């Protein structure tokens, strides 16, 4: 009923284009030099209002110099339902491709963020409302699979109106598919961090995005499953002014943090380092090597638990006793 694209209330967040003369913030109306706004990562220098940015710009902001290699770019969208509303699906796709210069609503590949290696998947709201169809689901699956097999963490920057109506039920199925993809990452024991950018709604928040180990959002981002219009129509409830904002979601306990774009890169690198054990590059590499053989990780954890359980100084612990943990326990 409401998984699907409901374009965010604010369409006034286009990024500042290159060049251009005068610009004033859509929120505080302060004029600013466009170059300064761009240099400030498309955040208003006066009030901190975060403008929407596309996938390419996001990647450029996050990764180190030359630190991104796109993968799976050859995946092509089909029109399985031969869907036509006021326009055909292929027409809508071509328009989106022309407008964004992207082939789909997500760009994914391997990346280095502040020297931390990872798999990075970035959605683009400008491409059909960032809607999730088969190609978006497949790229997320492959990103997760690569993260799991290579022992790399996964970072997903999510902005989406939800499932893509033009692929009908197959879009809905991408929610289940991407949820299973998170399981693949979890089983491999590699970190998964999601960043929710304005707006992130519908099928994307109700699947992989909110299942991340760490889930943060940008200031002011609107996040919800059912949108204000659907809620108002169905329930006639009066919505609080800050309904669905990142800040309100943080207060409600649905997010780990709200992170300003200017700090996002360093925060992400920190989260990844911490989840990877906070060690030296050698330690991280060693952990990765272990995670390549899934059994290895479990055994190492079990060995450690066993050693701790049997530690002589542990209350009630008996140095000579068989540990109470078995690898099976740890796995469960």
């Amino acid at each position, binding site marked *: *009923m*409401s*998984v*699907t*694209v409901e374009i965010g209330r604010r369409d006034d967040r286009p990024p500042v284009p290159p060049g251009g003369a005068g610009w004033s913030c859509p929120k505080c109306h302060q004029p600013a030099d466009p170059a300064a706004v761009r240099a400030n990562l498309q955040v208003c220098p006066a009030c901190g209002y975060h403008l929407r940015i596309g996938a390419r710009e996001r990647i450029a902001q996050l990764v180190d110099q030359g630190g991104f290699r796109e993968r799976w770019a*050859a*995946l*092509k*969208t*089909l*029109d*399985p*339902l*031969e869907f036509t*509303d*006021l326009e055909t699906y*292929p027409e809508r*796709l071509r328009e989106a491709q022309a407008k964004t210069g992207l082939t789909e609503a997500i760009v994914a590949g391997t990346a280095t963020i502040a020297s931390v290696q990872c798999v990075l998947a970035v959605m683009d709201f400008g491409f059909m409302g960032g809607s999730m169809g*088969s*190609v978006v*689901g*497949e790229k997320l699956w492959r990103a997760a699979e690569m993260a799991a097999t290579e022992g790399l963490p996964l970072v997903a920057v999510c902005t989406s109106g939800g*499932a893509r*109506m033009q*692929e*009908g*039920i*197959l*879009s*809905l*199925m*991408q*929610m*289940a*598919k991407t*949820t*299973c993809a998170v*399981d693949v990452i979890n089983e491999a024991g590699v970190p998964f961090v999601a960043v929710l950018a304005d707006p992130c709604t*519908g*099928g994307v*928040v*109700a*699947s992989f*995005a909110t*299942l991340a180990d760490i889930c943060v959002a940008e200031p002011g981002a609107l*996040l*919800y*499953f*059912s*949108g204000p219009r*659907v*809620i108002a129509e*169905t*329930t006639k*409830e009066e*919505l*609080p002014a800050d*309904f*669905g904002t990142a800040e309100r979601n943080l207060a*409600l306990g649905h997010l780990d943090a709200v992170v300003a774009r200017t700090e996002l890169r360093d925060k992400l690198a920190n989260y990844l380092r911490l989840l990877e054990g906070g060690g030296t590059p050698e330690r991280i590499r060693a952990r990765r090597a272990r995670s390549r053989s899934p059994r290895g990780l479990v055994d190492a954890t079990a060995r450690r638990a066993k050693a701790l359980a049997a530690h002589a100084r542990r209350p009630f612990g008996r140095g000579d006793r068989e540990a109470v943990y078995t690898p099976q326990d740890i796995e469960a």
Partner: protein
Amino acid sequence: MGEEIERLSTRLKTLRHEKRRHDAWLTVQIAREKDRPRTREYIALLIEGFEELKGDRLRADDRAIVGGLGWFEGQAVVVIGHQKGRTLDEQQMHNFGMARPEGYRKAQRLFRLAERHKLPIFTFVDTPGAYPGIAAEEGGQARAIAETMRNMARLSVPVIATVIGEGGSGGALALAVADRVLMQENATYSVISPEGCAAILWRDAEFAPQAAEALRPTASQLLALNVIERVVKEPRGGAQNNPENAANEVRQALRETLAELVAIDPAARRAQRRERFRKLGAFSEGSVAGAVINALPSLSPRPQRDF
């Protein structure tokens, strides 16, 4: 003569198109039919000694989702389903089958119960969608649905979902990440309601019949897309005309499907379930258009449009 043939074939095309639209929209109406048997009716007809188990163990009991234990042909099972209700009072009591986070969390704890005691799970899907209310949103609706899907995907016991009415978007899918998905002949399953789709894409809910046709939400269409495994027959005109007969068809489908699933090793079953969902979607890859087309049966003789 040639002109006449052309004219008639164009007319035939238009009529076929009209019929498809009519069929899809008619099915949507039957799926929502007030007197259509609901989860409780199927439980009464299929499950012996049903013991309802309420509550999410956190804060509430959501009556839009019912669940419990019972016997299906001598096998103890866990049953979970959306409950819409038939009379207006019932519908209000069950919130028209629109679950809140509490409902999805109830489903999750019943999954855990089933897993612990190695009981197969039957789910019945019949909802317009998850409840779009402020309290539901702020109570974590999105995450509740995501977790329910994840927990369902992880189960090692057999899970069979049956769509018996409206399969409305994420709220429906939350109970349908199953080993096999069955669907009654006149049920629908869709990413969005035809009205919602029409309001967004046509900018007018009046275009719901067109949207219904475009979304291809009927059982036979979903079978062609590999989204469901089996279409369950209904009595003429719809399940409401003969609930016992409808239930018998469901019984037979459940019996056969369960027998098939029980024969599979639990770990393999789980892996196959994941694989089932991984394969869903349509895309091509490589320079040759359509060289790799993923799990895509042709809906019409026309070649796939590629771009």
